[in-house]
C-alpha cells in the first residue's frame, strides 16, 4: 500500500505551530514511517510549481497553520485545497484568526500609516510604504499584497478538521494525525481536543462553586492569585468555562487564568459572544451606575479579554477604510 501523502503549510503565523510539530520528537519518526511528507517549508525544499504539478486530490491531508493575511497565503491555500483530499486547520490562527486577527479592528491604512510613518522611531518624511511593485538599484521587485483583513482558513477554503490551540499540544497533534492516517475519520468539521469545557480538566475545578457570583472584577496584575482556588471565585476572569479543554490546563498550572486559545466548545459558533454573555451572567451588580463605574475604572477590553483568539471569526469587527 502506498504511504499517505501529508503536506504542512504555514500562513500568517509565529512559528509556534511548527514548534509544536517539532515537539512531536520521537513521534515525528513514527510520522515519517507512516507517511511521505510532500511539503513542509520548514524542513524541505518547497516550490509552488511542485504543488501545482501534482494531480488534484493527490495529497491525502494538508495541515495548514496561520491566518490568511497576505495575497500569497490566499493563493497557496486555494492551491492546496485543490490538491488535497482533506484540509486541517492547525492552531488558533487557522482555526479562528488567532491573535493577529486583533488587527481586524483597525483599517489597513491605519496599520500601514502607523508602521511606516507614525511609529516613534520611524524617520520617513517621504512617506514611503512597501509596495507590491517597486525597484531597488534598478532591480524590479515584487511583494505579496497585505489584505484588508486577516481571515481564518475556513473563510477562504473548505476545512475538514480543526486542531485548536495557541499552539496545539504535541499530544493533540499526534492524536489527530494518527486518527487521520489510520483512516478512523471523525465526522467532518470535528475539532480535536476535548468536547467539554476546560473546567472539567482544571486542577482547581473542585474549588469552583455550583454558582459563581462576582461583586467585582480584578485584572491579573492587581492580585496575587491563590494557586489552589478557582480564579473566578477570586474575581479574575478565566475563560475556562467557555473554552474547549484538551490543553491539560497548562496556563492554570502556571498560575494564570485561561485566555481561551482552544476556542469554543462544540455547538458554540462565536466564543467572544459566549464569553461576554457568561461573564455578564455571573456579575452580581444590579445597579447600573455601579456597573458603569466598575467598567470605567477597570478599563474593560472586550476584544482582548473575550475574543483574543477568535476575532477573525467575528465579521462585525472588520473595520472598513473610511472613504
Amino acid at each position, binding site marked *: 500500500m502506498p504511504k499517505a501523502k501529508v503536506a504542512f503549510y*504555514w500562513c500568517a503565523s509565529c512559528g509556534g505551530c511548527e514548534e509544536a510539530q517539532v515537539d512531536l520528537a520521537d513521534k515525528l519518526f513514527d510520522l515519517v514511517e507512516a507517511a511521505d511528507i510532500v511539503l513542509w517549508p520548514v524542513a524541505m525544499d518547497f516550490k509552488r510549481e511542485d504543488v501545482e504539478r501534482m494531480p488534484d486530490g493527490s495529497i491525502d491531508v494538508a495541515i495548514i497553520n496561520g491566518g490568511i493575511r497576505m495575497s500569497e497565503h490566499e493563493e497557496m491555500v486555494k492551491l492546496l485545497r485543490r490538491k488535497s483530499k482533506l484540509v486541517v486547520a492547525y492552531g488558533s490562527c487557522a482555526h479562528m484568526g488567532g491573535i493577529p486577527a486583533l488587527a481586524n479592528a483597525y483599517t489597513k491604512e491605519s496599520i500601514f500609516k502607523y508602521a511606516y510613518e507614525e511609529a516613534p522611531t520611524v524617520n520617513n518624511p517621504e512617506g514611503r510604504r512597501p509596495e507590491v511593485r517597486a525597484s531597488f538599484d534598478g*532591480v524590479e521587485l515584487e511583494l505579496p499584497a497585505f489584505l484588508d483583513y486577516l481571515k481564518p482558513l475556513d473563510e477562504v477554503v473548505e476545512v475538514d478538521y480543526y486542531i485548536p490551540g495557541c499552539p496545539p499540544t504535541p499530544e493533540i497533534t499526534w492524536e489527530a494525525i494518527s486518527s487521520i492516517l489510520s483512516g478512523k475519520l471523525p465526522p467532518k468539521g470535528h475539532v480535536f481536543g476535548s468536547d467539554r469545557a476546560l473546567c472539567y480538566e482544571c486542577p482547581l475545578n473542585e474549588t469552583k462553586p455550583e454558582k459563581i457570583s462576582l461583586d467585582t472584577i480584578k485584572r491579573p496584575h492587581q492580585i496575587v492569585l491563590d494557586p489552589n482556588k478557582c480564579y473566578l471565585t477570586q474575581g479574575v476572569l478565566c475563560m475556562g468555562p467557555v473554552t474547549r479543554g484538551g490543553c491539560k490546563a497548562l*496556563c492554570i498550572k502556571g498560575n494564570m487564568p485561561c485566555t481561551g486559545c482552544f476556542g469554543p466548545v462544540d455547538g458554540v459558533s462565536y466564543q467572544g459572544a459566549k464569553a461576554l454573555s457568561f461573564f455578564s451572567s455571573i456579575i452580581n451588580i444590579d445597579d447600573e451606575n455601579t456597573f458603569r463605574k466598575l467598567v470605567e475604572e477597570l478599563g474593560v477590553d472586550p476584544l482582548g479579554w473575550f475574543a483574543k483568539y477568535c476575532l477573525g471569526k467575528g465579521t462585525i469587527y472588520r473595520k472598513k477604510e473610511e472613504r
Partner: protein
Amino acid sequence: MREVVIDPITRLEGHGKIVIKLDENGNVQKAILQVPELRGFEKFLVGRTAEDAPQITSRICGVCPWAHHMAATKALDDLFKVEPPLAAKMIREFAYNVFMLEDHALHFFVLGGPDFIVGPTAAKEERNLVGIIKKLGADVVKNVIITRKKLRYLEQLIGGKITHPVLGLPGGVAKPLSDEDWKICFDTSKEGIEFAKFAYKALKDIVLSNDQYVELIKSDAYTHKTYYMGLVDDNNNVNFYDGKIRVVDPEGREFAKFDVRNYLDHIAEHVEPWTYVRFTYLKGVGWKGFVDGKESGIYSVAPLARLNASNGMATPMANELYKEFYQVMGGKPIHSTLAFHWARVIEMVYAAERMMELIENPEIRSKDVRNLPKERPDVGIGVVEAPRGTLIHHYETDERGIIKRANLIVATQNNSARMVLSVDKAARSLIKNGKIDDGILNMVEMAFRAYDPCHACATHSLPGSMPLIVRIYDSDDNLIKEIRRD
C-alpha cells in the same frame, strides 16, 4: 541581463526571498534580501490591557516567545513603576537563560552548524541533521534532542507553557519555584553545563582546528565593518536579561552607552518600498544607504555584536573562551559574519554557567515573587537580549493601563540592513562568470544564516536544510537553469 531568484527562504514569520541580478558576464550586479510579510502588532496592541502584552507579543514569534514575553514584562515593571522582588528577577533570568541555551543549541546543531560540521559545500542531502548523525554519531544527536527536551521541560515548569509562557507580570512572576521544580532545575542546569562544554568541544574539534574554515570565517566575502550593539552589566560584561545598551564603533571604541528608556535618542528606522521590514540605524550617525563603515549608521546585534560591544563574559569558563576568541581572530572587534556561530557557542557556555549561578543561590527559592503595582502607569520601556539581538518593547497607556501607543524594535530588525549587505557581498564575491551551483548558493545563504535571523521554522527544522529553489532566466525571461535542494 539575468536574474537569479532564491524563493522561498524561511525566515521570521513567513518567507524570505533573495533576488540576484547578474550582468552580461554573469557577475553579480545586485543581490537583495526581501521580507514579504506584515501583521501589525504595534497597531492592534492599542486598546489592550497592558498586563496582557507579555502574552500577546509572545505571538510575534513562536521560536523566541520568551524574548518577547520578557521584554514586555520588563516594560510593564517600568510602566507600573514597580520593582520585582529579587527571587522574581532571578526566576525570570534563570528561565531566560534556559531559553537562550536551548535556542542557541538548536541553531548550532541543526541550522547553522551543519554548514561547518558537515561542510559548506557538502552534498545537499548531507548538510543537515542527517549529515550530523553520520559525522558525529547518533548518540551525539540523541544527546542534543534529549537535552533540548529537558530544557524545554524547565520552561514549562516555570512558565506554564513552553511556547507562549504566562509567568511575567508587572512586579514579578505568576508563581514561585516549588521545591520539586527547583530540584529538576538544579539537575538540568548541571547537565546544561556539560552540554555547553560538549558543544564547544565540537566547535573546536571540527571548525577551529580546520584552517580552511578559519580562513573562510575571516574571508572578505563575509566581512562588514559596522557598529555593534548589546546589553552590558556594570562591568561591561554581556548580559541577556538586564543592563545598559552599549554601542561600539567599527574600531571597537565605545560610541554610546544608554539606558533603554533613552532609546529614542539613539535608534531610528528607515523605510524602503521593496520590503515590509523597517531598517534600524544609529540616529547619531544617520542613514547613509546600504553601505558599511564608520560613516554609516548601520549596526549589528546578536552573539558576535554582543561580544564586540562588551569587555567580557561574567562567568569564568565563558570568559576564558571569550579571550581565546579574540586572540585567534586577531583582536577586537571581529567583523566576520561567520564568527557569529563561534560567539553563539561561547554564549551557550555563559547561559549554562549563569543558570547554575542563579539556581544555586538560595534566594531563588523564596516564595516572595510579586510586588503589586501601586503607581499610575504612563510609559514603560523594556529591553532584553533575544538570541538574535537587542529587543525593545515600548508601551504608553492611559491611567488605567490601557495601551495607547506601542513601539517594538525587534531583534532581527536590527540586523536587517547588515543582512542585506551580507547577502549582496557574499553573492558578488562567490558568483563569478555565471558559475552557480548548489554549493555556491549555500555559501550565499550562509551569509544571512549566521545571524540566525528569526526564521520561525528553519531554526527548528528537521533535517535543517533551508528550502531553496533557484531559477536562472536569460535576458528574454526564459528559464535556462533550475537548481533545487531537497
